């Protein structure tokens, strides 16, 4: 008598659980026409480690797989690879390591890309949109394992010199002081 009751009850229980689990799923939002706020330049008081720009800890796109993949594509399309290679660095510093000269918070990186940095990082403000900048911020951070692991990209189209971002272990970011002198342009890293 007991088992006659238990079976339908268990079955109903499983159905309810599955329904609840599915209800918890939410589809990721893909926004082709987003206008996230440009990071407030106030947050960029030089080496601010804490972001006070009102942007969430991983930036607006740190957990969005579509935006991260866009960032990865733009990183090549906008020729960031020309100076930073695919993260390993060249004429510009490596971006896949734990060391950051100008801060690792999303707002800091936003400011780096938008306004440029004195030792040779160009300003992209007038040439790329805030949405694209945030996508790049999310991607740059993912190179050292920041942001959601589930959202980071899982494959590289170029010859792989390192595991794809999803397999990168999360580095603990540290601030380093920039080299005191400007690197002479003659010193060329591998492209």
């Amino acid at each position: 008598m007991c088992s006659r009751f238990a079976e339908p009850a268990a079955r109903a229980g499983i159905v309810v659980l599955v329904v609840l689990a599915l209800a918890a799923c939410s589809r990721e939002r893909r926004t082709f026409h987003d206008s996230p706020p440009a990071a407030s330049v106030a947050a960029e008081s030089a080496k601010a480690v804490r972001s006070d720009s009102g942007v969430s800890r991983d930036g607006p796109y740190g957990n969005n797989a579509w935006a991260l993949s866009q960032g990865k594509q733009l990183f090549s399309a906008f020729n960031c690879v020309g100076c930073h290679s695919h993260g390993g660095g060249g004429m510009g510093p490596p971006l896949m390591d734990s060391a950051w000269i100008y801060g690792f918070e999303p707002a800091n990186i936003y400011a780096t890309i938008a306004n440029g940095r004195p030792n040779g990082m160009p300003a992209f403000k007038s040439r790329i949109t805030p949405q694209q900048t945030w996508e790049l911020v999310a991607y740059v951070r993912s190179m050292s394992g920041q942001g959601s692991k589930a959202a980071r990209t899982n494959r590289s189209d170029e010859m792989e010199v390192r595991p794809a971002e999803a397999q990168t272990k999360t580095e603990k970011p540290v601030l380093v002081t920039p080299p005191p002198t400007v690197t002479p342009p003659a010193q060329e890293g591998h492209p």
Partner: protein
Amino acid sequence: MRPLTRAVTIAAAALACAGCSLHNAQNALDASGPQSARIAGLWWLMLPIAAVVWVIVIAVMLWGAGRKRSVREVMETRGGTEVVANDEARSRRMTRIVAAGAIVTAVILFLMLIADFRVGQALTMAPSTKVVPIKVVGHQFWWEVQYPDSVPNKTVITANEIHIPIGTPVVMELSSPDVIHSFWVPSLTGKKDLLPGYTRSLWFRADTAGVYRGQCAEFCGLEHAKMGVLVIAQKQQDFDAWRAAQLDSATTPSDSLAQHGKAVFLGTTCVMCHAISGTSAGATTGPNLTHLASRSTIAAGTLQNTDANLYAWISDPQRIKPGVLMPATKLDPRDMQALVAYLRHLK
């Protein structure tokens, strides 16, 4: 009655299909040059042979399946199955028929192989006369086209629409920076793959002026199906005039709307991927837009080049070619209108 109705329906459908006029279609049998004519010839040789062989094979099979065995053949019946008598003369006859069938098949295949080799040889043999060299680079989902010249600043760079003179062979140098693509313009030539890390060449000639559509023929990603190409074959003097016009830098528009559009273009993200000669835009990630308005289509043959389509394309390329490597750019409608006016000015 039933089978008759069915037959009539099929016949009507076939007639209707035959009646379709495939305007601008990719048709390997509508040959417009010596290369495609040879390929079409091969088809017309092989089709009837294969058809006759097929009919014979099917007929023999049906006859064999349907015929009744003669009493002489059947020795006994065991449990309802007929057991065939062991007839020496008969089995020798059968061996001879099968052997003859094998030999005829081999001969037919060999003859077709020779015909195929001869066509292949004729297609690859480089022309000895004057040729027009063209570089074609297959990108994920569009074609970059360059007309090299011994004087470097006389190199023409365009995209997706390849102009060629009729009667003169063109030699294409094919390469790819990303994945394998394949160049195929059925009315003019057979396929040739574009391989990353290699440069391969393909030559062909068009004899009749016209616009021939082609298509990437090797799956290359999400928008492979929308990676079309147009070959515009024209008289030598028309080709020369086109080429000369393509050498000009873009002019500054005179009307204020288009002038504003130029500022919009140069002041936003377009310059990160596109080049317009005579301006500060010089990126090569996307198609060169210097003479965009002289092209009849945009986005690799996907849309007609009209104001409305340009507007739709720039405001959301992902809706037209989902997965394309151009991001949507959010601009206010006035700026968009100006931008489109500027792009339409780039004759």
